[in-house]
């Protein structure tokens, strides 16, 4: 089964770079390009239906509200959730901060008795992994500062896989939250969600999944994964910038106090006190990214039409070319596990370190050939440090990435050591 060539759906991919070279876009892990269907949906909203959501009795307000809530239902269905279990946020970072911030607020007395179950403090533990993006590490680290709880983490092995031998000693009865990534944006490794969730349930900890690198690339069903919360971003799944989403079990979202306060989220406000609406509204104060929600739903529709199983299979082929290809280049080290066609726990990207050549210099050589890759620590300083490097060069694909794109990366990378005079 061959995956359809969808490049024509993406206006940006037709442009040329650096003196007329065709663009080879391999930075989708950072941010994806957007199909015309997404741009049109946003524009159509702005040109025909824009109005204040959930607040007016006039026709435009009605239409805008209808489209906004329909978008919520669509994005919810895309990840196997109910509509009222999806909270819109600015991005995935904001979604993760929403959970951490709300727990901090509950611990400071906000939300009163209704939110008391979320209170944490000295003696409690928050657990993450060594493979986290800063967005799923720093909020928890600082929640620990704020509440006096202790941060612990599951280490990774030399291949970037979680060291499950340590699971039971790190996640214990003291653990209140276990936050972990679904797929690493550096090694590409997919976490053993089932094992981690089972352990969290055993000790009564909340689970928070970072779905940034899974939702755009794999079929994801929060009900099947059985997690309590999951964060993901619009812009990485072919949707607009300026929007992300938090999935949360309804009962938890209803009891969690707001992390951010304002209009539209409240029931009754006096100068002295405030009572909140139910979820998702209580977590959506202020004017929401409405056009962006409509665009994100269009992205979910676009991906669903392709079929997420087919998308995942397509990206597995890219992974094979990238990971096998770079492994053959002398002086190039692949971060994370070597390609193994039998293993199913790696997404379609490859991050590499070139002996003696700094990632910035690697990226420059690629860029000169029209190849857009990402260089640096990719917001994962601890994981890079654990793997013995300070940064890497990453190629990451999406539905529009061709096998030729992946091969172009491997070929260009092979020229790097000699260009910098460091060949073996």
């Amino acid at each position, binding site marked *: 089964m061959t995956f359809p060539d969808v490049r024509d759906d993406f206006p940006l991919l037709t442009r040329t770079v650096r003196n007329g070279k065709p663009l080879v876009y391999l930075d989708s892990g950072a941010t994806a390009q957007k199909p015309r269907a997404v741009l049109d949906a946003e524009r159509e909203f702005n040109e025909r239906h824009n109005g204040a959501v*959930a*607040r*007016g*009795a006039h026709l435009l*307000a*009605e239409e805008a*509200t*209808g489209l906004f809530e329909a978008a919520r239902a669509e994005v919810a269905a895309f990840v196997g959730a109910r509509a009222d279990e999806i909270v819109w946020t600015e991005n995935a970072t904001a979604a993760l901060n929403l959970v951490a911030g709300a727990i901090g607020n509950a611990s400071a007395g906000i939300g009163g008795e209704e939110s008391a179950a979320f209170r944490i403090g000295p003696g409690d533990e928050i657990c993450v992994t060594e493979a986290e993006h800063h967005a799923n590490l720093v909020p928890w680290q600082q929640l620990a500062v704020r509440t006096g709880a202790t941060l612990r983490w599951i280490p990774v092995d030399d291949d970037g896989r979680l060291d499950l031998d340590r699971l039971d000693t790190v996640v214990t009865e003291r653990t209140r939250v276990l936050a972990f990534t679904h797929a690493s944006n550096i090694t590409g490794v997919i976490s053993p969600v089932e094992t981690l969730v089972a352990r969290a349930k055993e000790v009564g900890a909340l689970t928070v999944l970072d779905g940034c690198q899974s939702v755009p690339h794999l079929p994801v069903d929060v009900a099947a994964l059985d997690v309590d919360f999951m964060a993901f971003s619009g812009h990485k799944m072919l949707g607009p910038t300026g929007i992300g989403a938090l999935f949360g079990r309804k009962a938890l979202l209803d009891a969690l106090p707001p992390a951010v306060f304002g209009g539209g989220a*409240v*029931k*009754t406000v006096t100068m002295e006190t405030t009572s909140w*609406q139910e979820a998702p*509204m209580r977590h959506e104060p202020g004017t929401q990214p409405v056009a962006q929600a409509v665009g994100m739903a269009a992205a979910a529709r676009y991906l669903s039409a392709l079929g997420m199983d087919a998308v995942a299979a397509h990206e597995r082929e890219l992974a094979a070319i990238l990971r096998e290809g770079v492994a053959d280049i002398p002086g190039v080290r692949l971060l994370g596990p070597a390609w193994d066609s039998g293993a199913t726990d790696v997404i379609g990207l490859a991050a590499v370190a070139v002996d003696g050549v700094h990632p910035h210099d690697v990226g420059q050589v690629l860029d000169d050939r029209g190849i857009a890759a990402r260089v640096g620590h990719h917001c994962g300083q601890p994981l890079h440090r654990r793997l013995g490097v300070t940064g890497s060069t990453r190629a990451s694909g999406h539905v529009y990435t061709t096998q030729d794109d992946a091969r172009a990366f491997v070929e260009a990378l092979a020229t790097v050591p000699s260009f910098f005079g460091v060949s073996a």
Partner: protein
Amino acid sequence: MSSLEQMYQQVIMDHAREAHGRGLTDPGLIQVGQSHQVNTTCGDEVTLRVGLDGDRVASVSWEGQGCSISQASVSVLHDLVEDHTLAEAESAMDAFRDLMQAKGEGLDDDKEDLLGDATAFVGVGKYPARIKCAMLGWMAFKDALIQARKDES
């Protein structure tokens, strides 16, 4: 009849002006439930109390303020369910919800007969934002019933 006139039919205006069941009363019964609901768009509120006598809705009284649609709706609710069986009340509740979701088109004759005066709310179904207003009292009724029956167990 314009959409506006279809929405504000005389029946509704009359119920809004002189609402039935207004003023919370003590039903003097054992199975009593009460619910407070807020329409967060506008801050309208209703507090509704139900007294059950076996499987009969013996008493419905309420207090609140709001737009003519929400006030008239609680008033017809009062007329439709007080002194009826629980089963009848639930049928009325279902029929009213169907009417709200009918986008202004009306229902089949059986259901409209069941609703009586309440069919006048047909025009509200065209305005999603106003359905909330019309449903406010019914949400309170539904919740109050749950409260009242909790005491059963």
